[in-house]
């Protein structure tokens, strides 16, 4: 099986280039994932650098651009991929080396939405109550693994990574706005005012298209916008 992989080591390379790799067919087992292939390629060429950890789509380390589409290598099956498989780092982020990108800006935007439960009432001795229906509002939101596939596929985030918060951070914003236990709604909405932070979303929906966990940031952003409108009336 043939691969074409983005290579760049600022220590040694003047500029990035694409390198061809080949994996012998006898090494490929049925149902193998792209990450398995990358690990085998790394045995051939230890200098190939990428992040990985859980190998089952829950840690969010191995987000990359696979044949033009962002995804997690560990849950992308080889049989679904056209050859040569073209693998590039997540787009729009500074490249540290090979498939490793600098996600500082992505994490900064995450922190910007104050992604933590805020409730100023005295802490009860037991749990705060929440009905199953209230809890269900968090499904499709809390499962985010911060892999950055969505934000780095978003043209609005590419143009304004410092001003537009991007789909991942906004999904988290809605995760807390939607939580019956959270009391910071006003503050959260105030923080999202202005033309960029929230409203740069033009519902292009690349985020929904690529999310490896099947989440829908565009819908979450829609909910926030609706809440903003409702508040201004």
């Amino acid at each position: 099986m043939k691969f074409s992989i983005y290579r760049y080591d600022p220590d040694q390379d003047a500029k990035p280039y694409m390198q061809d790799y080949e994996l012998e067919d006898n090494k490929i087992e049925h149902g193998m994932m792209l990450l398995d292939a990358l690990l085998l390629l790394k045995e051939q060429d230890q200098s190939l650098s990428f992040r990985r950890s859980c190998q089952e789509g829950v840690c969010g380390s191995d987000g990359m651009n696979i044949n033009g589409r962002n995804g997690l290598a560990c849950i992308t099956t080889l049989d679904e991929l056209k050859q040569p498989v073209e693998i590039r780092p997540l787009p729009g982020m500074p490249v540290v080396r090979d498939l490793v990108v600098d996600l500082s800006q992505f994490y900064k935007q995450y922190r910007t939405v104050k992604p933590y439960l805020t409730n100023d009432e005295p802490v009860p001795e037991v749990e705060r109550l929440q009905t199953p229906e209230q809890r269900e509002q968090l499904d499709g939101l809390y499962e985010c693994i911060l892999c950055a596939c969505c934000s780095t596929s978003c043209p609005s985030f590419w143009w304004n990574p410092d001003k537009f918060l991007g789909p991942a951070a906004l999904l988290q914003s809605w995760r807390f706005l939607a939580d019956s236990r959270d009391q910071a709604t006003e503050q959260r909405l105030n923080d999202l005012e202005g033309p960029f932070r929230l409203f740069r979303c033009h519902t292009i929906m690349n985020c929904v298209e690529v999310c490896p966990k099947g989440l829908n940031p565009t819908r979450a952003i829609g909910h926030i916008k609706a809440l903003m409108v409702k508040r201004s009336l």
Partner: protein
Amino acid sequence: MSSIPKRSFDTLIIGAGGGGLRAALQLSQADARVAVVSKVFPTRSHTVAAQGGVNAALANVVPDNWHWHMFDTVKGSDYLGDQDAIEYMCRAAPRVVYELEHFGVPFSRLDSGRIYQRAFGGQSRNFGGDQAARTCAAADRTGHAILHSLYQQNIRAKTHFFDEYFAIDLIKDQDGYFLGALAIEIATGEPILIEAKTTLLATGGAGQLFRTNTNALVNTGDGMAMALRAGIPLQDMEFFQFHPTGIAGKGMLITEGVRGEGGYLINSDGERFMERYAPNAKDLASRDVVSRAIATEVREGRGVGPNKDHVLLKLDHLGADIVKKRLPGIRDTVMTFLHIDPAETPIPVFPTAHYTMGGIPTDRYGQVVVPVQQGAEEPVPGLYSVGECACVSVHGANRLGGNSLLDILVFGRAAANHIIGHLSEQHYHRPIPDGACDTAMARLERWNRQGKGESVPALRKELAKVMEDHCSVFRNEEVLQQGKDKVLDIRERIRDAYIDDYSQVFNTARIEAMELENLVEIGVATVASALERTESRGAHSRIDYPERDDARWMRHSLFSLDGDKMDYKPVRMKPLTVDSFPPKKRTY
């Protein structure tokens, strides 16, 4: 020495999983200056993969109390757990779970609005009576929910993070005080000395020792190996948990919650075979019991599949609604990796390396403790450890499902509280002696020169294969002795191993080489401890010594790197306030 940049904190925490983050939060909230060093971004730590839940006797579903939880944990440990620590943990459990809820963890809910709790293995009411429902769950993504919430609360508390820094070794002075650690920034390859009045190791387990495992690739036992190299013994390393239900041949974890929700195991005859091995608890017996039962079914020819090498986990009778609502992550995983829907088709499963019961010996405050000459054990000044890398010991010879998330929360918090007390007395950093970083720097620099031997990835594969072949569910002297010889041989060959990446920028080959050095030490500790223990207890099952031998072996093992020596210490049988649970025959 002077050329290495230095940063100073009150406390250095190595590892950003649940244990490290729970401790960090407690310390940051107490205005201590905390640095958390992690080789991956915190939410990539392996706590994220915990599925089924965390045990606490909240009694939200059926009557429950901490004392029953304590009994189950002592029995589950096959009486090797320390009963003072177990009492402490079970009493603290409701409180730490309520705290998590207040931190924002999106627990599943009952109609009453209270936290959802499910049945899990080894749980009983009234000291061995009916099945309890003690495991607090956020669907089957409890670890993810907890880890993200803890990270979020640490953002709020302004904890200082060193993300993607790899700790190489601990630093100590001639008096044995621990002073911090040498680490490198993975992105640049730059070394950094992080000086601290107290250092907390929370680096997780070493599941990568075994070829087929449920663990993340980062679970290489770095903290345990650092402790070994610093002269600390490792405790009870022969007890490695094989989870009964990893996906056969692949290893992805299928939570015990599947059986807690009503799923059960069948063999090639379609028989619900656990009824023979554990007439009362059946599929919810302790993990060691279920793993042995599966291995036995397969050995006796009742395995399923073309090679008759696994059994089936059946949950199609639960209905698609329950599967989607209570086990959505499992359904995703099975559909992704096996292309079947578990709501319709049973899952092929086999016991899979899962959890390191042993680790760095600590007391219930998280202080690392070592025997002093022939006398009683004493705390090591400035060094703490919590979570899977530590051995308190609350899990003894076999951990109960749902007790590992509890362990990291209770002892992460307890260690932080103890550190806060310590910091109030120790106002200044002790001086760092000249040359204190030399050994650690040499360890890093060794990988800058060309080796003439074998490649690191090949040796890592070989080690995992040897451990799987020689130190698995069933063991005997001959197989263990061969295993020990082979692991010792691999340890020698690593000295000449090579990597072919000499870049300073995000050099993962070099990190993997240092991980292999860590793994092999833990491999030696595991087989050496297993070879010496001539009895069967909990997860350590010797075919040549099939019975538990309390007279000789009701004691903890201690493996030291110095001469690969074994030592032993007594089990703490006396709880804090209640009567001791004396050893009894263990049936489920």
